[in-house]
């Protein structure tokens, strides 16, 4: 459902404030209503008090007349009766309100008016009768009605008191209820707002965590969950950052490849120097001999020339393998054997082998399998260079072991060194792109990531086990009939 506040966090906060404002306003309105009611009741109280005073005065002059039998007291009594009737008339509104608020159906203004008339008539009769024969006849009735008058007036006054107390209690209760209501609403809204803002943020945090862990994520799927403007904005920013990151990663992978080629070139240059030097020396020897004598033995000439051509071939082979390594190609599988993979790879890194490190190559079954030779060479070179660096000028052995597991139809290639091993916390991140333990500028941290990528492209995997006692062993396992995987979802290597 589309609520006006579901569009953004800002709208939600705005609407939250509106709701609180409405509650506070309604609280004030209710309080104001109660207060105006109290005000009206205070007026009623005033009227009731005046009424009670008048009734008491009526009774005082009634008693005075009975005591002194004089005309002024009777006249005062009659005047007060008229006042009382006027009062009932003029404050009819207050008394009617009073009647409304009275809970129990007690005596009201109407009763008072009735008793007042009755009492007035009795007084008038008694007065005229007394004037004629000096005899009291209706005194008991007058007293009874007078008593009733006082009772009614007192009852009305009490009722007003009760009503005011009740209203005040209501005001108190409503203020308390209002306080509770605003408190819980504020807490509820706060919680809702916090969760509506925090939940997507948590999601973003989870996503960034996943990105940091190197997981390829589909930004469209995540953006689909987002209905809040702000969250969408953050996600869009994140998405564009991710795209840039991937772009940059591609560039770095490319430059890493170039750097790897550079490293190899340095090594290969050294390797190339040996056959060139040998060929050069052989040529110089032959030249010298031929300059010194016209009869250089034919066998010697052939031997020297064979040396020259042999060494030239060797140099050409080195150059060719470098070119093959450097060439940018999609994964293309060909039929190869372990011996065709492992020995030429060793030749490529021979220049990088530290003086004190010995290399052993152990090949089991050497039958053909399908794989991309250059890519596997690249993967192996990364593992070998890592192994060499582990020794840091200490003596050691690097064992390159290749075996075909015909029952599982797998190729298993192991690179094992008896170096110092990899610390546990490093091991966890060793295949992460850009993770490196080398100094800045000495390694991009992509070597092992590329190796793993190459394995994945072959439908294979790579694992590592390491201990400070036995050293480190990388195991690459790939199907014997691996087909080229597309580049989708992975960096172009």
């Amino acid at each position: 459902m589309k609520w006006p506040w579901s569009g953004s966090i800002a709208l939600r906060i705005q609407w939250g404030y509106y709701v609180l404002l409405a509650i506070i306003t309604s609280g004030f309105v209710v309080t104001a209503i109660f207060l105006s009611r109290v005000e009206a009741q205070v007026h009623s109280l005033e009227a009731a008090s005046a009424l009670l005073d008048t009734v008491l005065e009526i009774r005082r002059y009634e008693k005075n007349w009975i005591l002194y039998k004089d005309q002024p007291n009777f006249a005062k009594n009659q005047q007060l009766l008229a006042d009382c009737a006027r009062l009932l008339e003029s404050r009819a509104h207050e008394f009617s309100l009073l009647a409304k608020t009275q809970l129990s159906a007690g005596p009201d203004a109407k009763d008072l008016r009735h008793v007042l008339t009755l009492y007035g008539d009795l007084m008038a009769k008694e007065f005229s009768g007394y004037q004629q024969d000096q005899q009291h006849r209706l005194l008991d009735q007058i007293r009874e009605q007078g008593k009733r008058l006082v009772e009614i007036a007192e009852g009305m006054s009490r009722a007003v008191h009760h009503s005011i107390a009740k209203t005040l209690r209501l005001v108190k209760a409503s203020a308390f209820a209002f306080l509770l209501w605003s408190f819980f609403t504020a807490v509820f809204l706060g919680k809702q707002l916090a969760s509506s803002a925090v939940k997507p943020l948590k999601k973003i945090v989870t996503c960034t965590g996943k990105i940091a862990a190197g997981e390829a994520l589909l930004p469209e799927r995540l953006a689909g969950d987002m209905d809040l403007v702000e969250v969408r904005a953050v996600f869009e920013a994140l998405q564009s950052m991710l795209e840039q990151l991937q772009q940059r990663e591609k560039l770095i992978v490319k430059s890493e490849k170039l750097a790897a080629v550079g490293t190899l070139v340095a090594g290969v240059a050294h390797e190339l120097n040996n056959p060139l030097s040998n060929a050069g020396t052989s040529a110089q020897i032959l030249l010298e001999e031929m300059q010194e004598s016209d009869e250089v033995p034919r066998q010697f000439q052939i031997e020297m020339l064979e040396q020259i051509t042999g060494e030239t071939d060797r140099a050409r082979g080195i150059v060719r393998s470098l070119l093959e390594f450097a060439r940018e190609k999609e994964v293309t599988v060909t039929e190869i054997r372990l011996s065709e993979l492992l020995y030429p790879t060793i030749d490529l890194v021979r220049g990088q082998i530290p003086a004190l490190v010995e290399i052993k190559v152990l090949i089991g079954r050497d039958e053909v399998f399908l794989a991309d030779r250059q890519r596997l060479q690249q993967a192996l070179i990364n593992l070998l260079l890592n192994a060499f660096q582990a020794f840091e000028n200490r003596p050691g052995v690097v064992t390159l072991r290749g075996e075909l597991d015909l029952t599982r139809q797998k190729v298993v290639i192991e690179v094992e060194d008896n170096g110092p091993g990899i610390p546990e916390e490093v091991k966890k991140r060793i295949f992460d792109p850009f993770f490196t333990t080398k100094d800045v500028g000495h390694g991009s941290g992509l070597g092992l990531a590329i190796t793993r990528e190459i394995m994945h492209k072959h439908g294979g995997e790579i694992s590592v086990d390491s201990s400070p006692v036995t050293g480190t062993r990388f195991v690459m396992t790939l199907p014997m009939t691996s087909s080229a995987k597309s580049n989708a979802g992975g960096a172009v290597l």
Partner: protein
Amino acid sequence: MRSVKVLVVDDEKIAARNLQYILSKEGYTVEVALSGHEAADILTAAPENGYDLVLTDLRMPEVDGMKILALARARHPDIEVIMVTGFGTVSSALAAVQAGAYHYVAKPYNINEVRLVVRDALEKRALKRENRQLKEKLALAQGAQVPT
């Protein structure tokens, strides 16, 4: 006087044989070791100062040129060692010279250059030996005079 004995050490057979050929032509007795280990064995087995000169490749697996330099100088005090270096290892060769090698030859080399360096090294060695022998004679002569 016995002929000059030279040991050539290189794990590349062709390189070692070529050097042997070049130096043999100069009249030296040249032996070849195709690995650091082999060279170490030969130098250890030989009598003191049984070799006059060692030409060794600097970069070899396990026992490298630096190790051979140390071993040769320990076993044969008068010996001279010349380093043969490949591409990119000139700085290591200079380190070897600082550690006591006579000189270094960078591959690819001119064969006459190698001969010249070897000749100079042997000349220095001869002078060193002569100097030592004279000093010994002098000491002997002085020692003979002391009791009188």
